[in-house]
């Protein structure tokens, strides 16, 4: 019998369909990297002049901006979905509301060499990428027009146009809907229980560890109870931390480690699978700090979202998260 499960934060129901009992090899999606272009890759070291001017780079002392010698580099996106210049320009058109798309849209180039990525580089390089996110987000947050920011990674064929390993930083003048829903769910729970719902979820997951993929002192990686997608994972700090961008040294290291282990385990089960990861951090205001708890969602792109899911926000997941967690736990790295 399929089971219906409710996400305690989003109040979203998911159909867990164990009869369909899908294993990693049952998914025939597109695999591998996006097709290589004939033209040189603008993200490679040596091609700095092909991109807009960098907004941040970690580079060898004595090297100049927009020249070789860097190991992580952040640049504005060439075709940004939000633009940093101008006014918010709110207006009403009859019953409709509109405003200018003010914001930041930047690309984080995660390594200088074309074939390097978060799975095959050493842990120090992953840590440098996390430092770069953190440093850039702190800078962006100083602008009071931005209400929220996201760090998003689209990797692989079908989800990204570039094969050179990279992620996006997007700062928005509004709180995006999905985050607003998380906030509402977490706030409601906090008003009722005076506890952070994510802290309670962590406690419950640790108490019945069937969905845990990895844990150490600082971080927990697990497949959520109401996973929408097969092999969906959540990385969350054990201690209550609303803001990602003020992470301390130990947590930067711990997060880099948890992230790399999760991606490597996923890659063993699902070689070269395209995936997304999304950082959910508290909006840029102190008012959410009691009940929001930053976390990262990792979603391998295995199933196609069809009309039913779109229209209803009600997902069908053919792999129970307990099975997914066990396979991920057992993956030899």
């Amino acid at each position, binding site marked *: 019998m399929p089971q219906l499960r409710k996400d305690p934060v989003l109040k979203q129901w998911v159909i867990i*369909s164990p009869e369909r009992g899908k294993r990693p090899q049952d998914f025939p999606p597109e695999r591998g990297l996006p097709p290589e272009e004939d033209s040189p890759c603008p993200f490679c070291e040596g091609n700095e002049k092909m991109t807009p001017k960098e907004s941040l780079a970690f580079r060898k002392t004595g090297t100049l901006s927009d020249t070789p010698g860097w190991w992580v580099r952040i640049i504005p996106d060439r075709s940004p979905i939000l633009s940093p210049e101008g006014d918010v320009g709110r207006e009403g058109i009859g019953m409709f509301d509109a405003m200018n798309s003010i914001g930041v849209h930047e690309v984080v180039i995660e390594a200088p060499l074309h074939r390097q990525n978060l799975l095959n580089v050493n842990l120090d390089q992953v840590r440098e990428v996390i430092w770069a996110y953190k440093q850039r987000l702190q800078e962006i947050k100083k602008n009071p027009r931005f209400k929220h920011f996201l760090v*998003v990674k689209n990797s692989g064929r079908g989800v990204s146009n570039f094969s050179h390993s990279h992620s996006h930083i997007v700062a928005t003048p509004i709180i*995006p809907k999905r985050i607003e829903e998380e906030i509402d769910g977490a706030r409601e729970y906090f008003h009722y229980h005076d506890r952070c719902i994510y802290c309670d979820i962590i406690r419950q997951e640790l108490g019945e560890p069937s969905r845990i993929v990895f844990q150490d002192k600082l971080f927990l990686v697990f497949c959520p109870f109401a996973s929408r997608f097969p092999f969906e994972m959540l990385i969350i700090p054990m201690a209550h931390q609303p803001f990602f961008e003020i992470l301390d040294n130990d947590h930067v290291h711990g997060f880099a480690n948890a992230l790399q282990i999760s991606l490597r385990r996923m890659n063993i089960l699902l070689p070269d699978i395209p995936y997304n990861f999304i950082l959910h951090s508290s909006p840029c205001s102190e008012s959410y700090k009691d009940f929001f708890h930053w976390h990262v969602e990792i979603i391998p792109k295995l199933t196609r*979202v069809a*009309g039913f899911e779109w*229209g209803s926000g009600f997902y069908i997941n053919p792999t129970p998260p307990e099975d997914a967690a066990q396979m991920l736990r057992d993956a030899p790295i």
Partner: protein
Amino acid sequence: MPQLRKDPVTKRWVITILENPKGPKDFSVLRVENKQDSCPFCMGKESSTPPEVMSYREPNTLPNQPGWKLRVVPNRYPALQIEGDLDRTGIGLYDMMNGVGAHEVIIETPDHHGSFEVFSVEQVFKIVNAYCDRYRDLKRDRRFRYILIFKNSGSAAGASLDHPHSQLIATPIIPKRVMEEVEGAKQYFYYKERCVFCDIIRQELSSGSRVIHENESFVAFAPFASRFPFETWIAPKDHKASFGEIEEAEQESFAQTLHATMRKLMKTLGSPPFNYIIHTSPCDELCADYYHWHLEIMPRLTKVAGFEWGSGFYVNPVPPEVAARYLKQTDSD
């Protein structure tokens, strides 16, 4: 500069790219065909589906035999199962229940290569008629809270078979996306004592720039905060909450609008994969004053990337006014 637009019902913001908007030729349309001889939905293959729930057929032909014009069968791989009790339980802070529900397939025509490009208005009327018949029948089952009718066409839209078909899923919960619409509409009604959809339709008809097609009772338009390029909604001009209530004359008028709108979309975009979904009131109809049924059509032209997933904040490269202009110009004959 891109514009941010807010959906007045769900309060979802969309980034609308206004400069150099993409036209219908800028999207590459991919269709994957399945083999016909293995199709379980073709005439003569009636024994390869579960026994039919209903059919429209030639006089003197028997159920589960050839001679049908439209056929409704249970899904062979149902997401929800019709037998059993809900058995609601909680484990700590998690809630769950059994996956009880109905999952049916509407085989729209015996013709394997049929589609909205070749369907007559009469064929579309039969399909609409079947939707209504099944809706009314399932609504009598007290376990079901919502009945979702949708169509996935093309593998990129989630269809696993090419033979023209739609699906119906009756669920024991109200799906999240529907709940959001109902809540949004309720808030607007409390504030203004008017249906938000009636107001949208009034504003669209008077401004005209997003209207694609209309007849006496229905209007097809590109919504102000369209999430996807060429997203199109069809709504009845008169207030009616539930799709299940529509009379025969309205069914005819709706079929005529659906036929004309789908032909315009298929011709303009070169038969892209698409989804459509009927949004109707939950079965209890407590929202009869302020909900307004409608159909949402989403051509699948762009890939939804991590940013959209993580934020619920969409980027649309075609302003709905531009999409409406293309569609209005295209002949539906």
